[in-house]
């Protein structure tokens, strides 16, 4: 089985700090890959590199067999297949919910206004937000904003969805709101890579869990194996600290 997304020996540093160190990862189609690890271990950087928001120092990234780390690829075209949702939502504050969702389908995919609108309304209905279509982002709760941000990415029908700690700016009730959206997407067969601190959630949706430490995947396997029977001492240490902090 060849992977939809494949990273080979990725290296990335910011000035003197090595953030991703010879990291490799395969993401098969229709699976969810969960990245866990301490703050600063490189999860966000990894996702940003996959989305070509950061350039890598070495290694290769393949999407659907095409090397997207090639400087000659059209990054705008690649990003249409890779949608990224951010921890801080990053909705466009000067546009209504529906306008946020319609922007990329119209400008990037060249859809007509009517078509984009119909699709946007349908997505909003599906995720229980249809009443909010003409609201501005600052009138929405954090959970609603994050769901809109996810819908905005979905409107492009991406091949892979990258989610960077989409719940860490939210309180526990809102977290569930957003996580149930992710669960739905998972059952639809969406290919996802997500960084999260929600271990319970990771167990539910992940096909594979990767534990990152200092820019490397130290341990990788099924959620049960990594989260309940870790073989690596560093993974055990991390989980123990999470447990002590009451996050597990």
């Amino acid at each position: 089985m060849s992977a939809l997304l494949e990273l080979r020996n990725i290296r990335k540093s910011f000035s003197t700090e090595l953030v991703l160190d010879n990291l490799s990862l395969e993401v098969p189609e229709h699976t969810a890959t969960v990245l866990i690890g301490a703050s600063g271990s490189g999860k966000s950087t990894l996702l940003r590199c996959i989305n070509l928001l950061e350039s890598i120092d070495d290694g290769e990234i393949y999407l659907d067999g095409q090397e997207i780390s090639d400087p000659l690829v059209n990054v705008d075209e690649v990003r249409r297949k890779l949608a990224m949702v951010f921890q801080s939502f990053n909705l466009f504050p000067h546009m209504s919910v529906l306008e946020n969702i319609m922007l990329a389908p119209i400008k990037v995919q060249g859809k007509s206004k009517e078509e984009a609108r119909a699709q946007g309304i349908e997505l909003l209905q599906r995720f229980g937000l249809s009443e909010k279509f003409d609201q501005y982002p600052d009138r929405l709760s954090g959970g609603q904003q994050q769901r809109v941000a996810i819908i905005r990415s979905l409107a492009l029908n991406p091949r892979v969805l990258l989610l960077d700690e989409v719940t860490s700016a939210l309180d526990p009730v809102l977290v569930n709101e957003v996580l149930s959206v992710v669960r739905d997407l998972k059952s639809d067969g969406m290919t996802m890579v997500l960084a999260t601190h929600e271990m319970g959630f990771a167990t539910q949706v992940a096909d594979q869990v990767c534990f990152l430490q200092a820019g490397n995947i130290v341990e990788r396997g099924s959620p049960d194996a990594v989260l309940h029977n870790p073989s690596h001492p560093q993974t055990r240490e991390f989980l123990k600290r999470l447990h002590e902090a009451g996050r597990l």
Partner: protein
Amino acid sequence: MSERNNSAWSPSSRELERRKERGRISRRQAIIAAISSVLVLGTLISIAITSPGWAVVRKTFFDVNYGREVLPKVAEGIWINLQLTFIGGACIGVIALALALLRTTKSPALTPFRYLATAYVDIFRGAPLILIILLVGFGVPALGLSGIPSNVIFLGTVAVVLTYSAYVAEVIRSGILSIHPSQRAAARSLGLTSTQTMRYVVLPQAIRRVVPPLLNDFVSLLKDTGLVSILGVTDAVRAAQINASRTFNYTPYVVAAILFLIITIPMTRYTDRAIRQRMSNQNSEGVVV
């Protein structure tokens, strides 16, 4: 779905009491403010009027009859200032936007233009406006080039536009730079090109943010159009000057000042309000519009 019924509510007796109390407090404050204003202003005015020089001052600066006589001429002049402001303002908007975009672009093909735009802004922001007006107004006709109009109103406007485009470009650029990079990242990750990101995401937010400083510049522009009078344009300032030097009475200047103030004071009030609103928007909640 979270709409709750608000119509059944009627204020409690305690709330009614509080409202009465608030009304009493604000009435008392209004009375204090009124008394204090009357006392202070009355004192200042009576000192001015009873001072020995008042009669001369009044005759030289506030001659009502003479003021009435020159008003039509000065008003005709300020019409020129207004025209310069609006026509110039439109040109400034277009040029400044182009300069700001050039200065913030990363496109390699535009590199030379980026440097030129930077040099332009440095020069015209740093040189006194009056020098530019003299250079363009007197210098350009001296070249005797054909095809360039030697009309002083035109040349004066060009000089003002040259300088103000540099100011306004910097204001717009600061607005562009103030938009958080995460907005750009979000737009780019949706597949928008960098031009589309600027056009649909960054610029609309940036312009909204710089509206108050731009209004300030607009007020300054109106005032600075008075400087083109040195080229002999009969604007409000020049019209006042002609009359004042004829009679050695300075009332025409006061008339011109009052006309400017009638236009600028509402504008500055409005600007202050816009700034205050912007501030309160930013303070409530993390979302900055």
